[in-house]
């Protein structure tokens, strides 16, 4: 493989046979690169066929009037689906509810409660910490549909929440009817807080003890320590967590489907449920996909922000 022995002056050089040309460094390194990249190929094939393919297809049929039944050909309709969407009250309602759902359950609920739990856990005694952590994480590990049933039972007229309110002599009501979006938001907080709690626990554990202790000796109270020391030090985790929570919440389907089916009426119909209804119950695949594409674009924007947050680490 190394340099050939120097040929003597009288030796006739034999021409290399046509079958085995000496590999030039370039083709050899190319071949090596290909061999090395070979193991990646099964993953790439799967991802291209089943992930990139559907995304491309999504971008295509969003601009057609494809329907589920009775129509042989679909035709290209340009931006009609999008134009229709932005004039459709049901769509705008879904956008609004998605916003409410995301802000209430992800930004305010999971994020704040997760941080509160994580920082309380830093100080609490071990048994209490283990118990609370176990319960909160169980809620998270449960299958989505089961979580939906549990909270359906909790919020129903005959459910546990009303029983407690009665016992406290507070007015009870049919939560899934009067405030469905609030009920599903609480359900999502119940189910998703563990993730934030784990992320923040890991982040808080990395803050050197000396820093908080020094602040404590200097007389900084709990809130001021939180605001001036803890929060700035974990701001990257906050960013990451908010992004991931929001992306997760944007695509919640099963939980809401089980609890309310998007109802009553469409008062808890977030975008994924709206998309499903348009595509399958109303057979408007093209229109449903246009909504899906919008959701995908919003998701991608969040994804890009998330990548920028991680930029230094890749």
């Amino acid at each position: 493989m190394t340099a050939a022995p120097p040929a003597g002056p009288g030796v006739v050089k034999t021409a290399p046979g046509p079958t085995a040309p000496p590999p030039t460094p370039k083709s050899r390194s190319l071949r090596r690169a290909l061999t090395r990249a070979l193991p990646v190929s099964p993953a790439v094939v799967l991802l291209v066929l089943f992930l990139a393919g559907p995304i491309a297809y999504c971008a295509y049929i969003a601009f057609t009037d494809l329907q589920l039944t009775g129509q042989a050909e679909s035709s290209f309709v340009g931006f009609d689906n999008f134009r229709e969407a932005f004039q459709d009250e049901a769509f705008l309602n879904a956008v609004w509810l998605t916003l409410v759902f995301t802000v209430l359950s992800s930004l305010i609920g999971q994020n704040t409660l997760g941080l509160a739990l994580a920082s309380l856990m830093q100080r609490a005694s071990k048994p209490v910490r283990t118990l609370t952590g176990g319960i909160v994480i169980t809620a998270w590990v449960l299958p989505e549909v089961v979580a939906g049933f549990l909270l359906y039972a909790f919020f129903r007229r005959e459910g546990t929440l009303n029983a407690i309110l009665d016992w406290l002599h507070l007015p009870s009501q049919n939560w899934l009817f009067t405030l469905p979006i609030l009920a599903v938001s609480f359900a999502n907080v119940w189910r998703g807080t563990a993730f934030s709690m784990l992320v923040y626990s890991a982040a808080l554990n990395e803050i050197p003890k000396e820093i908080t202790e020094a602040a404590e000796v200097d007389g900084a109270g709990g809130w001021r320590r939180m605001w001036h020391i803890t929060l700035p030090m974990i701001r990257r985790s906050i960013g990451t967590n908010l992004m991931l929570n929001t992306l997760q919440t944007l695509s919640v389907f099963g939980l809401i489907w089980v609890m309310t089916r998007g109802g009553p009426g469409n008062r808890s119909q977030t975008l994924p449920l709206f998309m499903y209804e348009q595509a399958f119950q109303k057979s408007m695949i093209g229109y449903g996909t246009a909504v899906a594409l919008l959701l995908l674009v919003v998701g991608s924007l969040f994804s890009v922000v998330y990548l920028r947050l991680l930029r230094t680490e890749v």
Partner: protein
Amino acid sequence: MPVAPTLKSRRANRRYAADVGLLVVAAAFVLPLAWVVLSALDPDAGLQVKIPDGVTLDNFDAVLEPDITFTPLLNSLILCGGATLLTVVCAALAAYPLSRFRSRLNRPFLLTILFATSLPITAIMVPVYALFVQVDLIDTMQGTIFFFAASQLPFAIWLMKNFMDGVPKELEEAAWTDGASSFQSLLRIVLPLMGPGVGVVTVFSFVMMWGNFFVPFMLLLSPDQMPASVSINDFFGNRGTVIYGQLAAFSVIYSTPVILLYVLVARRLGGGFALGGAVKG
């Protein structure tokens, strides 16, 4: 009460306050969980958390039927087991060159992967359905398995690569000089050394798929192929009144495997484990 509390007593007070705070949250979170456990054992379960009138296993007896429990669970196992296997094998193979060899393509590839991990999969289910109808993969187990694997792959590759980076390269170099191929060293040296990492990827993929409702709900049609995540809805609607005790019993049976798997992995890796680390990169 001392006028100026010492640092020590202030800390003790703070610990009590933290304990009380956590217990309040724990009490709120435990109510729905208590409902499912108590109702499953209650001969006369309703929608409220209450102490059962008497403990019975009748609810479990009633649901432990082929149609209700065994077939859906078996379907779940085939679906999630198959897709997890595919995910883990593809992820391990793909992670190896990404972790071991330098290439100009690594960074763009990893960025794409990371980007894909956070895409809302829910959004592409309608086009996937339309596509599957065209290529005749709708209502097939293999189609659903392929899609499950593809949707879980980005995160699996990302996790696997991070775990693989933790295995020192020197160990393999010895094997390389002995003439072992990359594939052999991956199989014999790297993977055994990152056993816990492979475990995390496997369990995480499996748990995510086991609980997923939307994917099989969209891609499978015939009732005899439905996994537990979809068939559980049969307790509602079609059969008239809902027997909550049986629904609760089925929920317990269906949820137990993933809880056990989680405990297994969490034990192994201690508390908050890899997710926190994985999320931070």
